[in-house]
């Protein structure tokens, strides 16, 4: 039998509607990352039902734990650290993941650490690129977040911009519902937008001063446009509206990335002791980072100013490997953090 890998972290993620367990070596190498999506469970309700989600997490976790350990080819005794998302997320769902992680921790006599879900999304990029190191500028975009984050070093994060109202993914879901698309709305809107022409149904581009976002005005603009068009909203107009809505959201998101990259405050954080303060790495992550237009336009906007990393789809959506990676580096930097559920943490 060969040498066992050192520094194995087993992580659990149950903050919303994905149940996931992962085993990651040294915070960088994914040995297993199993994800069960509850999307079918919630589809008939047109959104995540917290109570159903929490029950499903409890029922799925035991099997996913087996799958993750088997898939990684490791024994519980090999696990050195347990990690679990402690927030932000749905309280009932977080309680299940945290409880199971605490139970495993007691059984295996291993420490357990709580992880901020948002930082997890950023660490998905580190799993994508082994050589990626802070300092970096991160844009976390999902159904719950549109946050611009400055990460000067491992375990340190500063939110420098966020949404005042809806998150980008939430805006996509609501627009999809208005356009009569299915659930989940984001991917459906993405597909429809590919067949439309934004310039035929232009919508306003939200723009707040500074690095803040707002998408509720755009949503209202779409609502009024649909009302004005009335009977005239055929399939073509619907596709054009999807394209216009997507374009407004994407350009608004990237406008702030552009502004942050150009801002002199980027020099505030020394990269390394004695090192310079330039940001050379940009990470765009979270479920909305799967959007086709965002992926294409992000590369253009960031251009040659920094290296852009957008994790592949399976690491953009919620998963436990990113939680394991974040935990590994956070423990190295800050020690073991509490596991008490905090659904508001980092919102």
């Amino acid at each position, binding site marked *: 039998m060969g040498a066992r890998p050192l520094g194995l972290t087993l992580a659990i993620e149950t903050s919303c509607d994905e149940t996931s367990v992962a085993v990651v070596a040294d915070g960088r190498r994914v040995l297993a990352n199993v994800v069960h999506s509850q999307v079918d469970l919630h589809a008939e*309700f047109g959104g995540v*039902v917290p*109570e*159903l989600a*929490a*029950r499903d997490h*409890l*029922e*799925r*976790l*035991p*099997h996913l*734990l087996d799958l993750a350990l088997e898939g990684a080819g490791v024994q*519980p005794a090999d696990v050195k650290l347990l990690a679990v998302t402690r927030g932000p997320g749905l*309280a*009932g769902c977080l*309680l*299940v*993941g*945290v*409880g*199971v*992680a*605490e*139970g*495993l*921790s*007691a*059984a*295996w006599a291993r420490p357990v650490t709580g992880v901020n879900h948002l930082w997890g999304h950023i660490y998905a990029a580190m799993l994508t690129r082994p050589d990626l190191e802070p300092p970096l500028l991160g844009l976390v975009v999902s159904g719950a977040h549109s946050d611009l984050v400055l990460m000067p070093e491992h375990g340190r994060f500063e939110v420098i911009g966020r949404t005042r109202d809806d998150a980008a993914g939430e805006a996509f879901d609501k627009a999809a519902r208005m356009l009569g698309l299915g659930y989940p709305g984001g991917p459906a809107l993405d597909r429809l937008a590919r067949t439309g022409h934004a310039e035929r149904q232009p919508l306003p581009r939200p723009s707040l001063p500074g690095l803040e976002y707002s998408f509720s005005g755009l949503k209202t603009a779409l609502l009024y446009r649909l009302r004005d068009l009335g009977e005239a909203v055929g399939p073509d107009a619907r596709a054009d509206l999807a394209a216009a809505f997507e374009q407004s959201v994407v350009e608004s998101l990237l406008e702030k990335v552009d502004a942050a990259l150009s801002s002199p405050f980027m020099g505030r954080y020394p990269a390394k002791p004695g090192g310079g303060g330039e940001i050379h790495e940009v990470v765009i992550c979270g479920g909305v980072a799967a959007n086709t237009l965002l992926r294409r336009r992000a590369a253009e906007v960031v251009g040659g100013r920094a290296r852009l990393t957008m994790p592949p789809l399976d690491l953009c959506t919620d998963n436990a490997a990113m939680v394991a990676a974040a935990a590994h580096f956070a423990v190295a930097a800050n020690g073991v953090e509490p596991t008490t559920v905090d659904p508001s943490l980092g919102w």
Partner: protein
Amino acid sequence: MIVVVDTSSARSALALLSPDGTVVAEEIHESGRDFDLPGRFRALAGDQTVTKVAVAVGPGSFTGLRVGVSFSLGLAIGLRVPIVTLRTLHIQAARSDDAVVAVAEAGRGRVYLLAPGAAPRLAEPADLPRDLPIVGWLRPTTESALRAAGLHFQPDSELRTFGNAASLMLESAPEVAYGSLKLEYMQVFSARA
């Protein structure tokens, strides 16, 4: 050792039983944010070998139930030992040999109750049967409301301890597959907003 966990109601209980059902240790705490289940478990179990986990599955508080059931599940999975489920109201009923009404905190001034020969249900204090003593763990305000409604609580000194009641229940407690644990909420929830 068999570990018994009940965090479903206004008080949280932990007990350690020997394989023959003798209570080795037990402790009761006020439920809430300050109750540290993993910490209390470690203190109680020490380095003793746990061979089975028993957990109360409600009805009771959504938060408390989730905390207790998920911790117990993780513990059982981690130790590769069986997990068995106990019903919250039946544990309280088993604390007395007399006919009693077992209650558990349901929030918003209401209680879950189990009367002899009837199915568990949710009730307002005024709807409780008046001819039998009450046994169970309620928030102080709920308990006061019940007393004000003329109900009489069986004193703790005349009751079995939690651990001894759980021990009685264990004989018939069903072993459950790890992935089949279900909580008994009793309160319906609406999935559609």
